[in-house]
């Protein structure tokens, strides 16, 4: 027990504590000087950080879509649509690609003079500045993130399906239930815990794993419309040499993650009791 505690303290809590402590010191001429909550006050007053937090809220709103896509595709695979084995491999394939590669590919595809806009031109629709329009760019980046990562969630859903009693699906089929009815009354209740788990992991992935895509696809722009806290932290630390402010933002992100995590733990526990 004691060695485990030591490892946790030395490798987890101690670095975390250093980071939190650093957030209470100053940058530049005040390097190492205690400044109390000044960095947190700066964060609250920084429209850029508020934009980043606002985008976290947007991700939460988009979360059901990010979960529904792999859920529906897993349902189709489980119901053995023609070619389901191929689809299982194809859907999973992007999960093994580096976000940088994915970002580079979609930067080309979504370029103003890229193939997608060429296609739109062929069907008579005007070009869309997918990565240069502040109202569109965040959805483009999140869409690519979902594309790149839903394979893992799909695997989790398929594992969940393996625990689903097949007699329930057979009964629904015999009773003449439509697909939407089967989804609503059999599959969703039967996979409740799986769905909640995918909600939790997808949310964490969105908050902590989009840096590579943002860096390659938009650089946080246009107009900072695609900033997320993680990207903000990198800019403050690496580009503007404000590591203490970056530490404060990291601590804020940690608290956000903690709140989201606690909420998810609560939901899962309630679901477990219901199960």
């Amino acid at each position: 027990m004691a060695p485990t505690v030591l490892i946790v303290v030395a490798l987890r809590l101690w670095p975390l504590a250093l980071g939190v402590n650093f957030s209470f010191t100053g940058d530049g001429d005040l390097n190492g000087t205690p400044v109390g909550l000044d960095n947190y006050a700066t964060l609250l007053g920084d429209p850029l950080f508020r934009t980043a937090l606002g985008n976290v809220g947007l991700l939460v709103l988009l979360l059901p879509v990010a979960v529904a896509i792999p859920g529906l595709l897993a349902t189709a695979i489980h119901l053995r649509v023609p070619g389901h084995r191929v689809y299982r491999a194809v859907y999973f394939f992007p999960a093994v690609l580096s976000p940088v590669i994915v970002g580079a590919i979609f930067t080309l595809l979504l370029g103003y003079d890229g193939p997608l806009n060429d296609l739109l031109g062929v069907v008579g629709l005007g070009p869309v500045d997918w990565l240069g329009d502040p109202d569109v760019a965040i959805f483009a980046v999140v869409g690519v993130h979902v594309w790149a990562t839903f394979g893992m969630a799909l695997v989790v859903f398929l594992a969940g399906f393996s625990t689903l009693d097949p007699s329930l699906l057979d009964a629904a089929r015999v009773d003449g239930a439509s697909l939407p009815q089967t989804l609503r009354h059999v599959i969703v209740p039967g996979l409740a815990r799986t769905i909640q788990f995918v909600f939790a992991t997808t949310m964490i992935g969105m908050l902590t794993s989009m840096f590579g895509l943002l860096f390659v696809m938009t650089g946080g722009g246009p107009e900072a419309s695609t900033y997320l806290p993680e990207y903000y932290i990198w800019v403050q630390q690496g580009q503007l040499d404000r590591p203490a402010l970056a530490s404060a933002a990291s601590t804020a992100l940690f608290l956000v993650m903690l709140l989201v995590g606690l909420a998810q733990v609560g939901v899962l526990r309630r679901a477990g009791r219901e199960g």
Partner: protein
Amino acid sequence: MEQRLSWSFVLVLVLCAACGSATAPDSSGGSADRLVVWDWKSGDATSAAYLDRARADFAKGHPDVEVEFVAQPFDQYYTLLGAAVQAGRGPDVILFNGGGRIRDRADSLLPLDEYVAGDRQRLVGWDAFTKDGKTYASPVTLQGHPLYYDKALYERAGLDPDAPATTWDDFVEDCRTIADRTGATCFGVGNKEGIGIQFFLSCMGSAVLSPAEYDAWTAGKRNWTSPGVKRIFELWQQVDAAGLNNDGVNSTAMFNDAFALFQSGRAAHVIGLMSDVGHWKDFAEFLDPDDIGVMAAPVVDPAATPSLPYDGGIGYGVAKWTRDPALAADLVRSLTSTGALAAFSADAGAITSDTGIDVSAGGPAATAIAAGIKTGKPALHVALPSTTVDLMGRLSQQLLSGSTTVDEALAQLAASDRAG
């Protein structure tokens, strides 16, 4: 679960209260007989001869000292450097960009004035590495923003490639002619990272501001509400609105997409660089070197006198925690020796800080840039604090999309500049 979590938090807070600053920059990356250099150039083939010459020059005076170059990826360079400095394990000699990049980190560096006095006259570009009267690095290259143009497109459009427009109105007229007759846009611009405005401000600044206002700006007396400054940002907006830029500017990367537009003959002009990337030698890989022209910024206000905007580009500084400052400074002097810089100029095409080096072999563009150095002035954006430059990038995107006005943007920039 909640109980365990609460205890974790208490432990974190206790640990916080127990520890001091995270910084302890008191140890060196090297030793008495070893110097560690961080850069983002030593991995490039075009830098090999330059570094060989610098090593040889340094070895003449210090044959027993080992020099280790550690190449870092540029897009992560300042992040890694910041982490190294905070950890107190920084290198001895550090490559920096001039301007805000080094000034923001001057408190980690050793003033070099006493060591580099002998290089003062030979090299130019010192100001970009100076803060509060102290010099923190020796310049290797000069970085500036010449206005390049494609002489072949001018010819195809029936314009005289050797006599580009000297006034803004004539320039716009020529651009329309080029667009009509060749299909090329006037400017190849990339503002995805928000750096398009930096190039535009510095390239066009001397064609709009009077010499006195220009000098006041670089001296730190910046009037963000002056008609001239407002005119520059209005031009930035109007150029795009008039269709003089390529489409999708805010989603086009400067490196390499905007330059590719110029190199491939799809844009007649580009505000490029003069160091070792995005410059005449890069363009000459695709265009005939004789077709690459460099023109003065077309005059917008008759009171203005266009000049080449340039500063020190990259330079080497010495970390203040190095064990032997004189030794590290000697390495910096070797890295800026004439022989080493001549090799860098020949292989990388850089306009170096040693203006005695002959660049005529580089073609007319290199010759034109070199000729402009004597009358050139520091670039306007380099004088700004990093936070203001960062803000300017975002505001420039808003100006192009119309989600802010020039007056609103200038008010924000003025406030940021005042705050430093």
